[in-house]
């Protein structure tokens, strides 16, 4: 249970994901913000208005997944690092998962790294497809990894070297 362990349940995660229908249309943000805290940069950072205005700053964010283009700007904006982008149209077998990764050293594109779940446990090796670290991301690089489609709700972190 999230309040005791910091690990969201499968129900929590499913609640944050868009519908299968929307997933199949391409990249989309998944916001894992499960607790009301005073925070709204995801809304102010969303340039296309998919994340809706907050009535109260402690509201949970509301996203219209149909308007979201999966641009990934919100990933680096979220102070809680609670947002990822999932694109299941990446290939026949794999989805592209874009996650924030604030550690040194950064992986290189093409590297094979350890894919970890929300418990920090090793799931399987994954390939790094892209690493974005522009100034605008203010030291929250976004790493894109290729993840088997049945693991998009499992793999949420990476580790370089070691197990």
């Amino acid at each position, binding site marked *: 249970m999230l309040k005791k362990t910091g690990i969201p349940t499968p129900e929590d995660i499913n609640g944050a994901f868009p519908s299968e229908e929307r997933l199949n249309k391409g990249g989309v943000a998944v916001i894992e913000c499960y607790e009301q805290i005073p925070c709204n940069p995801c809304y102010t950072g969303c340039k296309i208005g998919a994340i809706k205005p907050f009535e109260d700053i402690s509201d949970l964010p509301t996203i219209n997944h149909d308007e979201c283009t999966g641009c990934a700007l919100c990933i680096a904006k979220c102070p809680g690092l609670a947002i990822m982008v999932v694109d299941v149209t990446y290939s026949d077998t794999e989805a592209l998962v874009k996650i924030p990764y*604030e*550690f*040194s*050293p*950064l992986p290189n594109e093409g590297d094979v790294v350890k894919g970890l779940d929300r418990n920090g446990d090793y799931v399987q090796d994954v390939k790094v497809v892209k690493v974005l670290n522009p100034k605008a991301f203010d*030291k929250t690089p976004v790493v894109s990894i290729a993840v088997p489609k049945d693991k998009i709700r499992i793999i949420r972190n990476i580790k370089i070297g070691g197990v």
Partner: protein
Amino acid sequence: MRIENHPVLDFGERKAVKFTFDGKELGGYENEPIAAALHAAGMRDISHSLVKHRPRGLYCAIGNCSSCMMVVNGESNVRICLEPLKEGMTVETQKGRGEIL
């Protein structure tokens, strides 16, 4: 014990200086607190409690707790978590309440 690579912070160029801790020569960076230089050199046991003489180290590192008082250049009761390190400083473990000048 120094951080080599940090994903967010850049500590920049700092000037290396030498100082002594109970007679032993150690290195650190100019103007960092003496406490940072001692910790980086692995020196943690830097003080003793007044009555039972139990080993003491840093606790708060921001000048509140008085756990890190040492004798610096002959002056007692210096909070080394705040005192900037300078070239050639003499840092010594304090005995009891220290000498009042």
